[in-house]
C-alpha cells in the first residue's frame, strides 16, 4: 500500500488536472506554444515487463550509454520502472537508488520529507497531471559525506507511439555528499505521437556538491515534452547543471535553480540544437532567496530547418538577499532562413547591494570567420561545421564527463551534416 501522504497528494493533484484546461503559452510577438495538435485522449500509459540484465534493455538506450561504467542505473520504459542497478559498495554506504514507487514504501519518512517540497500541482495542468498520475519514477538518496565518483544515471524511455509517460524523479544529496547525476530522456524515431510529462526535483543539503546533466533526445517522432525541473541548493552547497536539448517535436520546460541558503552557488550551462519543425520553449529561473549566493547561467542554441526556439531566462533576487552575484547570458545561432529564435533575459531584483547582469543575442554564422577559415583551404561547409562546434564547445567541455561530451559532440556533428545542404545554401545566399 502506498503511504497516505502520497494518496492525498495525488487526489488533490487530480482535481487540479481535471479542472484545468489544456494550456497555451503565449510569448512576446510571434510566439505561441500550443498543444492543439496533441491528441491527448489517444495516448495511454504503457506497461512493460521488467528486464533482468543490462543487455536486454532497448538498443537506443544502450547506444546512448555506450557501455560506460556507472555507479547506478535506473530505467523507466513507458509507465514501468523496468531496470535498476546500484553498485553494491554504494548500497552498503546507504545510497538509495530505486523507483519512486518503491522508495515510498521502503523509505516513507525520507520521501515524505522531500516529496514535492519545491513543486506544486497548482503550477498548471501538466504539473498536476504528473503529480497525480506518475508511475515508476526514480528516487536517489546520497547519505551525508558519501562521495560517489561514477555517475548515477536515470533514464526515461519511450519506445512506442501512443505512449503517455508521467515521470517523477526525486533526488536528495545530503550534507557534504558529492555525486554526479545524469538523467536521459530518450526515444527512437517514433511514427506517431507520445507525451512525456515530467517532474524533476533535486535537493542539495549543506555543503553538498552535485554535477547534474539532463539530456533530452526524443528522436524525430512526434514526442511532446512538458516538464518542470527544479533544483534547490542548500548552505555552501554547489550545483553545476547542464541541460542538453538535442531533439523533441515540442518541448515546454521550466528549469529552475534556487540558491536557498547563504553561500550556495549554482552554474547552469545549457545547450540546444533544434531541427526540422521542432519547437522548443524554455523558461529558466536563477532564483536567489538568501544573500551571499552566486549564480552563473549560460545558454547556447543553434537552429536549422523551420525550427523555433524561445529561451526566457529570469534572474530573481529576493528581498534581503544582499551580496548576491549572478550573471545570465543566452546566445542563439540561426542556421536557416526559416528558423526563428527568441532570447529574453530578464531581471527581478528586490534588494540592494547585489551584482546581477544579463544579456542575450540571436545571430547568424559570422561570414568574416568563414572567410578566414576558407583562406586556410577549409571548404565552406566544413568551416561552418567547425564554427558551430566551436560555438558549443565551451558548454560541452564544462560537462567534465567524457562519455557525455563525446555523445553531445557526435550528435551536434550529425545534426549539422543532416542539414548540410540547407546550411550551405543559406550561407551562400547571404554571402
Amino acid at each position, binding site marked *: 500500500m502506498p503511504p497516505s501522504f502520497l494518496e492525498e497528494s495525488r487526489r488533490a493533484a487530480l482535481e487540479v488536472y481535471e479542472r484545468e484546461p489544456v494550456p497555451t503559452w503565449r510569448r512576446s510577438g510571434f510566439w505561441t506554444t500550443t498543444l492543439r495538435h496533441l491528441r491527448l485522449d489517444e495516448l495511454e500509459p504503457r506497461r512493460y515487463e521488467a528486464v533482468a540484465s543490462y543487455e536486454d534493455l532497448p538498443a537506443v538506450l544502450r547506444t546512448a550509454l555506450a557501455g560506460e561504467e556507472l555507479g547506478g542505473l535506473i530505467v523507466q520504459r513507458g509507465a514501468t520502472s523496468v531496470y535498476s542497478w546500484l553498485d553494491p559498495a554504494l548500497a552498503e554506504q546507504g545510497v538509495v537508488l530505486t523507483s519512486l514507487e518503491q522508495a515510498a514504501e521502503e523509505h516513507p519518512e525520507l520521501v515524505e520529507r522531500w516529496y514535492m517540497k519545491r513543486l506544486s500541482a497548482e503550477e498548471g495542468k501538466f504539473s498536476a497531471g504528473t503529480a497525480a498520475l506518475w508511475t515508476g519514477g526514480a528516487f536517489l538518496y546520497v547519505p551525508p559525506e558519501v562521495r560517489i565518483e561514477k555517475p548515477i544515471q536515470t533514464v526515461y524511455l519511450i519506445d512506442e507511439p501512443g505512449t503517455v509517460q508521467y515521470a517523477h524523479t526525486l533526488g536528495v544529496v545530503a550534507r557534504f555528499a558529492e555525486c554526479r547525476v545524469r538523467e536521459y530522456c530518450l526515444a527512437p524515431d517514433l511514427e506517431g505521437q507520445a507525451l512525456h510529462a515530467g517532474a524533476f526535483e533535486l535537493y542539495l543539503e549543506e555543503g553538498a556538491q552535485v554535477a547534474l546533466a539532463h539530456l533530452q533526445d526524443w528522436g524525430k517522432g512526434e514526442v511532446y515534452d512538458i516538464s518542470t525541473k527544479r533544483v534547490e541548493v542548500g548552505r555552501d552547497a554547489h550545483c553545476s547543471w547542464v541541460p542538453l536539448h538535442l531533439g523533441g517535436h515540442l518541448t515546454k520546460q521550466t528549469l529552475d535553480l534556487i540558491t536557498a541558503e547563504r553561500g550556495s552557488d549554482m552554474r547552469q550551462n545549457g545547450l540546444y540544437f533544434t531541427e526540422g519543425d521542432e519547437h522548443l520553449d524554455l523558461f529558466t529561473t536563477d532564483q536567489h532567496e538568501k544573500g551571499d549566493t552566486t549564480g552563473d547561467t549560460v545558454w547556447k542554441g543553434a537552429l536549422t530547418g523551420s525550427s523555433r526556439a524561445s529561451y526566457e531566462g529570469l534572474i530573481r533576487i529576493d528581498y534581503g538577499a544582499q551580496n548576491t552575484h549572478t550573471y545570465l547570458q543566452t546566445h542563439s545561432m540561426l542556421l536557416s532562413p526559416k528558423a526563428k529564435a527568441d532570447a529574453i533575459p530578464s531581471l527581478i531584483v528586490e534588494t540592494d547591494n547585489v551584482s546581477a547582469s544579463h544579456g542575450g543575442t540571436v545571430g547568424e554564422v*559570422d*561570414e*568574416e*570567420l568563414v*572567410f*578566414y*577559415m*576558407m*583562406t*586556410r*583551404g*577549409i*571548404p*565552406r561547409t*566544413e*568551416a561552418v561545421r*567547425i*564554427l558551430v*562546434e*566551436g*560555438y*558549443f*564547445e*565551451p558548454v560541452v567541455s564544462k560537462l567534465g564527463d567524457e562519455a557525455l561530451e563525446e555523445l553531445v559532440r557526435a550528435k551536434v556533428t550529425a545534426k549539422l551534416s543532416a542539414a548540410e545542404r540547407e546550411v550551405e545554401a543559406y550561407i551562400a545566399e547571404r*554571402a
Partner: protein
Amino acid sequence: MSLEIQNLHVRVEDKEILKGVDLSVSKGETHALMGPNGSGKSTLANTIMGNPNYVVTEGKVLLNGEDLTEAAPDERARAGLFLAFQYPATIPGVSVANFLRTAVNAGRDEPLRVMDFGKLLRQNMELLKIDPAFNKRYLNEGFSGGEKKRAEILQMAMLEPEIAVLDETDSGLDIDALRIVSEGVNALRGPNAGFLVITHYTRILRYVLPDFVHIMLNGRIVREGGSELADDLEEKGYDFIREEVEAGAA
C-alpha cells in the same frame, strides 16, 4: 611559377578602390608593397584571397597561369596562396592544434598521420618560439597582438604556400615580436616560396629584405624598384612621392 595580378580594378560598396593594378610575384622572390593608409594595399590582399566583400570589376588574378579571379577562397588556398591577416579572426571553441590539423589536411588527399602532424607542429612552433601551451588555446581568443601575428606565421609555416601575402604583419608589434616574426618569415624564404609583404612602414623591411619594392598610391602602383626605394621612402616620406606623381600627371 608565380602570382600575376593583371589590370585589377576592385570596388567595395560602390567605391572603386583599385584602379588598374599590375603586379607579379615569382617563387623565390620577396616583394614589398608600400603605401599610406587608404591607398588600397589591404584591398589588394583581400582580393588576391577572394574576400566576397571585394568585387573585381576588371582584370585578373592568376596563379601559375591558372585564372583564380572567380575562385572561392578555399580553392585559392589549396592552389598555393596564403594571406596573413592584419586583423586575424578569433575562432571561439577551436584550439590552435585542431584548427591547424583541419587546415593542413584540407589541402591533402590523404590526411597527415597524427604523429607526423605533431612533429611538424612542434618544429614550426620551436622555429617561431611559440610556447607549446599555445596549442590548446582557442585560436586567437585572448591572444595579444604579437601572439596573433605569430599564430598567422605559424599557419603559414604549416601550410607551406607557394605565394604568401603578409598584410601589415608588422603593425602593432614591439621590436622583439617583430624580430621573431621576421625570423620566422626569413626561415620560410627559399626557392619554393614567394612573398608579398604589405606594410606602411619600412621597419619590417630591415629584417625581411625585399628584392623588389612597389609603392601604391590611390589604388595604383606608382613607383617600382629595388630595396633602395624603401630607403628613399624612409628618407623622404609618402608626401614626396605624392607630389612627384601629381607633378608627373600635370
